[in-house]
């Protein structure tokens, strides 16, 4: 196995294009190095993308934020402006693993590993975040929800990798939240995860909303019916009930050791409701 740590996007693209599927992009390694040790992946080359400045920075852009794909969870936690504008994305990214895992784990890796239970993905989808993908044909910008196509599978073409996430500008009275259900309080994988992003008008009526669920289908879901249940309301109990129902109805979960299908469907409603209530409460304060 070879190791390369290019310092520019162009060099990384050239390496990745020349090696095709025999190369693997290395970000924090918290999925990849576990898979390597288990013999699940046997790449001929590791392309470490952490020396590329663009992949390691958080910057203001177009009234929003651009976050490098390889920025570690701990760096997200330490960015006060980002936490203020996007508390839901930050809490989702910071739920990934322990303090030690946070020192390395990135949202780019979380997305491209394509686990249905990836915590940052529903929060990014709810935010309406875009990803910049680069490859031999240049750059393209696509919604986060278009990347994962199934467990462990992505829509990235040979030679492509994710450069950064772009979060849109924040209007007044807008905020987000992410909650997950796990059997214990730390160090476990989501049974259900929910990301909710809301914008209120001056009277406190929801003018825009996005809801995304993780771990209840082969990829994270965009649940439009749940968002519709909120829009035009002030987030009263009846609206939250309707949102919970829509969330449960959207689930296509599996049975596993962490929960049965029936359990996941029910919990998805409960968690979506709590997450929406939290996002609404935050939005009323900003």
């Amino acid at each position, binding site marked *: *196995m070879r190791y390369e*740590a290019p310092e520019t996007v162009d060099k990384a693209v050239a390496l990745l294009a020349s090696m095709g599927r025999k190369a693997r992009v*290395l970000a924090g390694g*918290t999925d990849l190095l576990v898979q*390597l040790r288990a013999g699940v992946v046997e790449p001929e080359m590791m392309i470490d993308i952490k020396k590329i400045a663009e992949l390691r920075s958080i910057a203001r852009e177009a009234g929003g934020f651009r976050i490098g794909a390889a920025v570690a969870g701990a760096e997200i936690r330490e960015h006060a402006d980002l936490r203020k504008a996007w508390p839901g994305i930050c809490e989702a990214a910071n739920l990934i693993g*322990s303090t030690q895992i946070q020192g390395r784990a990135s949202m780019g890796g979380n997305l491209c590993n394509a686990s249905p239970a990836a915590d940052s993905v529903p929060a990014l989808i709810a935010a309406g975040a875009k990803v910049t993908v680069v490859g031999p044909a240049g750059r393209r910008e696509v919604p986060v929800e278009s990347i994962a196509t199934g467990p462990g599978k992505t829509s990235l073409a040979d030679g492509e990798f994710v450069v950064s996430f772009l979060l849109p500008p924040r209007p007044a009275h807008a905020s987000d939240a992410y909650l997950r259900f796990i059997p214990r309080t730390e160090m476990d994988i989501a049974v259900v995860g929910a990301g909710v992003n809301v914008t209120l008008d001056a009277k406190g009526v929801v003018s825009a909303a996005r809801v995304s669920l993780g771990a209840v289908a082969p990829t994270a879901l965009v649940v439009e019916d749940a968002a519709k249940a909120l829009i035009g309301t002030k987030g009263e109990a009846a609206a939250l009930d309707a949102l919970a129902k829509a969330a449960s109805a959207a689930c296509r979960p599996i049975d596993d050791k962490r929960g049965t299908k029936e359990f996941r469907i029910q919990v998805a409603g409960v968690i979506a409701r709590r997450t929406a209530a939290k996002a609404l409460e935050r939005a009323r304060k900003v």
Partner: protein
Amino acid sequence: MSKHHVTTTINGDPVEYLCEVEQTLLDVLRDDLLMTGSKEGCASGDCGACSVTIDGRLVCSCLVLGVEAEGRRIETIEGMAKGDALHPLQQKFLDHAALQCGVCTPGFLVAAKSLLERNPNPTETEARYWLAGNLCRCTGYDKIIRAVLDAAAEMRRS
């Protein structure tokens, strides 16, 4: 495949080594540099026994490649005591009997030191969450947490 030549700093000392890409930083530390203080409990990021800091950031050395240490600053458990003088955390672990077999101890100490560098006055909850990635199979966590909080109090006094 030829080995990689890595130049790095470990516990303040310049260090050079040759390693295969497949070797983790933990493999290099233990097998090549014979710094066996960092332990391998799981090799999958779950137990924290291999905790080190890289450029001040707490990580699992079992999930870092040896080649990634190039040009970085690594701190391990071996750098914690200054000669015979134990770090206050080490002394408090002894005082509170916060270890039995000791396999988890280096990881807990490195992780706790990293906590106290950022937060000299953590609450019990903050300490428990910070250390949630460190597993202990024999002592139980109460004594460990008490030792950490007591060390923090002592370090604030001095």
